[in-house]
């Protein structure tokens, strides 16, 4: 590393600043663990969770997993590896930019503390960042012999079992009601090998409650298996993955690697995906790729290719004689619904994604179709601008004939789907731009473009505009959208973060969107708007108080409408949350929350039909990590009273390592849980969790085979982690 004279000065000054910075240096590494930090961002994300967030959380857990294995190296990791931190709201796009510029200008980092010399780096961010970063020496790995790289790294084995204690209808043996094939336990087994973040291999096996485990119901043992081998940075090969993997390019309009937290309280959160190829380690049974993928870097050019072939679940339908006609016998219009088995499996109505195979009908959809996917992605880099070109193709061995409902008119049908997409990103001064335009085979166009501007160390702005045609089709997209997939939506989003004082952060966003075509539950083109404002006050490093207001209005078919024609009304959901979290001592952490929701109809032409309902949630958390005992304990007691499904509330819950729960609360009752980690040995951790919800105004829970004839539901979970 050669430094010019001014650079030396800069560097000397940087080190001086570093040493004189008592506050940080005197402190040990922040005791806040990575997990806790991510729990916080997950908690933030959880409120916005619909079905999609489940996979987002899952994806986050994979990232968390990797970060826990290997901190990010300030000197080696490329920008894509840092994107998860941006997505998790720990780092802003401009801070990331600065972090890399610093390396460009002044050479390799000498210490993580050097980060504080970056003008945009504030103390709070730095504290969060320090446990996640390290400063490596270049070429460390290349000296390690291959055998050690492949077998001398870190091994982890996870064994997890959980069950609901109350008997559910499907598990009772009765001749009249054919129940679930297997027992009520949920089992999970995972082995993971890591050599730094350079080599990873592992496998996962999982069985859901009610699914068979060996025996006649499931001869292959577990219901789901997954495995991968992943290597990075071998000569020109940047990533190489065999087995199960995910890909994500650009803004995720075609391939979004599961991880796209959509709108988020951290309104300045980035949108760009991380590395384009990632090993798949989660347990969603359908949305991943199986085969091989590679990314090759040649100077400023980068080529990614991937190919996959695997079975996917499908609702098989018997097509009538004329497969071209729409008059087919269809078992459900909702993609989630379970299709009945059919004699002539020459078509499918949907690709369900729940991964449940407990009954004969559910079994019938397991792996009922085969999917082949391949694609290539070319990326051109020039200083801090990137331009990417993607072409990919998806093919099924059977025809998909979705619902003939008008709202589904533009849904994907047929047996193949090709895409082409162009995306780019870059920075100019303090503005980062990004965008993608994608074309699906039928001519549908989707485009998104945005800018994130760090206008001042205290003010960040992001503006994102999207235009997704109703005709645009995608099956693996995960992009910025109000809905779960980028189609039938035009919108503009403004996000603003202001830190007028060092202890106060104001976040706000406004999102206005239209759906030019019908949607499920909206029989006309519709509009919506979504506002959020949050005031956070951190009087000290250990205390955070925030007040958040959110207001969303979406046009939907008027409820309780008796007229022949449906008409739209605005469905409002407003919520107010006050949250206090405080660490009283290194051992004790408390969190309290009160949240209220109002849901109802606005613009209602018949005010007497307005049925605004309210929901209320209060909870108290306690987290205790005794200094002298090898254990930690988290407990929560929550009380809820939500009058309707629309007024339901979500709350993120701590769970055993790398698994997450975000239950929602409806009706009246209470819930408590306790989760503990016991370190039995250096290499052995035991996690135990017990949770119970008791309802006051219900007599049973669930329906069908999941019915519990009791007003309470309890779950127990145990996990062993072995490290060697």
């Amino acid at each position, binding site marked *: 590393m050669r430094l010019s004279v001014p650079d030396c000065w800069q560097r000397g000054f940087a080190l001086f600043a570093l040493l004189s910075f008592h506050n940080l240096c005197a402190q040990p590494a922040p005791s806040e663990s990575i997990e806790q930090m991510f729990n916080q961002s997950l908690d933030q994300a959880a409120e916005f969770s619909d079905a999609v967030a489940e996979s987002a959380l899952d994806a986050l857990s994979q990232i968390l997993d990797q970060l826990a294995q290997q901190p990010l190296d300030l000197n080696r990791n490329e920008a894509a590896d840092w994107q998860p931190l941006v997505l998790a709201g720990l780092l802003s796009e401009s801070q990331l930019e600065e972090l890399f510029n610093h390396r460009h200008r002044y050479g390799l980092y000498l210490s993580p503390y050097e980060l504080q010399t970056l003008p945009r780096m504030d103390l709070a961010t730095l504290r969060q960042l320090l446990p996640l970063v390290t400063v490596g020496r270049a070429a460390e790995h290349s000296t390690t012999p291959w055998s050690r790289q492949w077998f001398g790294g870190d091994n982890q084995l996870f064994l997890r079992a959980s069950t609901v204690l109350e008997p559910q209808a499907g598990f009772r043996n009765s001749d009249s009601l054919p129940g679930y094939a297997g027992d009520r336990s949920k089992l999970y087994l995972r082995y993971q090998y890591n050599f730094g973040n350079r080599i990873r291999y592992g496998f996962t096996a999982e069985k859901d409650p009610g699914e068979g485990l060996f025996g006649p119901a499931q001869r292959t043992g577990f219901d789901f298996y997954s495995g991968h081998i992943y290597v990075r940075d071998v000569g020109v090969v940047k990533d190489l993955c065999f087995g199960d993997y995910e890909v994500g390019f650009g803004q995720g309009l075609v391939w979004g690697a599961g991880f796209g937290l959509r709108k988020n309280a951290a309104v300045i959160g980035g949108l760009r995906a991380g590395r384009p190829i990632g090993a798949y380690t989660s347990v969603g049974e359908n949305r991943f790729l199986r085969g091989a993928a590679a990314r090759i870097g040649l100077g400023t050019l980068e080529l990614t290719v991937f190919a996959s072939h695997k079975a996917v679940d499908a609702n098989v339908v018997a097509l009538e004689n004329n497969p071209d006609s729409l008059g087919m016998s269809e078992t459900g219009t909702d993609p989630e619904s379970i299709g009945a088995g059919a004699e002539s499996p020459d078509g499918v109505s949907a690709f369900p994604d729940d991964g449940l195979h407990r009954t004969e009908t559910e079994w019938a959809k397991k792996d009922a179709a085969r999917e082949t996917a391949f694609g290539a992605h070319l990326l051109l880099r020039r200083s801090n601008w990137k331009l990417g070109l993607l072409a990919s193709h998806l093919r099924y061995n059977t025809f998909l004939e979705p619902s003939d409902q008008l709202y589904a008119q533009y849904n994907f049908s047929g047996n193949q789907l090709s895409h082409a997409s162009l995306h780019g990103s870059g920075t100019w001064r303090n503005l980062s731009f990004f965008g993608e335009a994608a074309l699906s085979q039928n001519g549908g166009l989707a485009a998104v473009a945005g800018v994130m*501007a760090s*206008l*001042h*160390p*205290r*003010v960040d*702005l992001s*503006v994102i505009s999207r235009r997704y045609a109703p005709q645009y089709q995608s099956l693996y997209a995960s992009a910025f959208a109000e809905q779960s997939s980028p189609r039938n939506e035009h919108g*503009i989003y*403004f996000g*603003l973060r*202001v830190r*007028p004082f060092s202890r106060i952060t104001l976040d*706000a966003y*406004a999102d*206005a969107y*239209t759906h030019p075509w019908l949607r499920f539950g909206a029989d006309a083109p519709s*509009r919506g*708007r979504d*506002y959020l404002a949050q005031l956070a006050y951190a009087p000290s490093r250990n205390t955070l108080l925030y007040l958040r207001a959110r207001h969303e209005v979406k046009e939907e078919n008027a409820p309780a409408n008796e007229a022949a024609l449906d008409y739209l009304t605005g469905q409002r959901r407003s919520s107010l949350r006050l949250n206090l979290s405080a660490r009283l001592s290194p051992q004790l952490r408390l969190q309290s929350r009160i949240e209220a929701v109002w849901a109802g109809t606005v613009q209602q032409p018949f005010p007497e039909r307005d049925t605004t309902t309210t929901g209320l949630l209060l909870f108290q958390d306690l987290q205790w990590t005794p200094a002298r005992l090898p254990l930690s304990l988290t407990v929560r007691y929550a009380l809820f009273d939500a009058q309707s499904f629309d007024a339901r509330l979500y709350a993120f819950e701590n769970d055993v390592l790398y698994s997450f729960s975000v239950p929602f609360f409806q009706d009246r009752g209470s819930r408590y849980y306790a989760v503990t980690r016991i370190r039995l040995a250096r290499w052995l951790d035991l996690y135990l969790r017990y949770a119970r919800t008791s309802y006051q105004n219900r007599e049973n829970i669930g329906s069908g085979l999941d019915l519990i004839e009791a007003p309470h539901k309890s779950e127990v979970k145990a996990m062993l982690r072995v490290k060697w």
Partner: protein
Amino acid sequence: MKHSIALALLCFSLGSRAQPEAFGPRATGLAGAVVADNSPWAGFANPAGLAAIDRFSAALAVDRRAWLPGLETFGAGLTLPAEFGCIGLIFRQFGYSFYREQSASLLFARRFGPQWSIGIGLDYLRLSLADYGRRQTITGQAGLLYQPFNQLTVGMRIYNPFQAALSEDGQENWPTLFSLGASYAPAQNLSVKTQVDKSLEGPLRVRCGLDYEVMESLRLRVGFSTEPATPQAGIGYRLKALDLDLGAGFHPYLGVIPAVGFCWPAQKPEP
């Protein structure tokens, strides 16, 4: 004639009594969140904002709703600083020969210490409908600016507090509007503004705007106002002694509402 009646009806049905709300390309770009601003445009938003003006200045602007001829608002403002305070004159007109709203305001503003400014105004209003005659009335407004420290200004304005109306039967109400907002300027080239507006007849509207001088003499503005959800944007360009401004609101039902105007002499950047 039919066309004209339709337009007149449209004016009514849209509640186009937008007169008390902030006006001008600058306000349009900032989604109207300008109640805490000091500028020659302040006469259209908060009379107290004139107190800081120390030179004679003139501002002229026009906007057009729904891109329909006849739905323009013209506005002109003069600011005359004096020893004892600052005097402002505002003229505004909306509509065309068949339906016309006009107003003229005489404003007075002065500082009280380094932190406070107060402004008051007297407004003459006239509504003319072809073949129906005209109605007129007088009302008033008052505003306040408070600058607790350099970066932050808080503004408040009450317009038509005593609910002056254009007819005595209560059918022709003139809006009563309460605005409260703040402007936060962490640097010379940047300010973030927010405001809530409550008119007696309408819902609470929240407005938020951001003004950024992206390079010498070029300013970009974005904003958002609720009820209805309206993204807004604007550009300001300093051409020698003239401030040229362009703004547009993207109304969900009316489409683009463009506004254009200028101000002389050009304003120094906000402190």
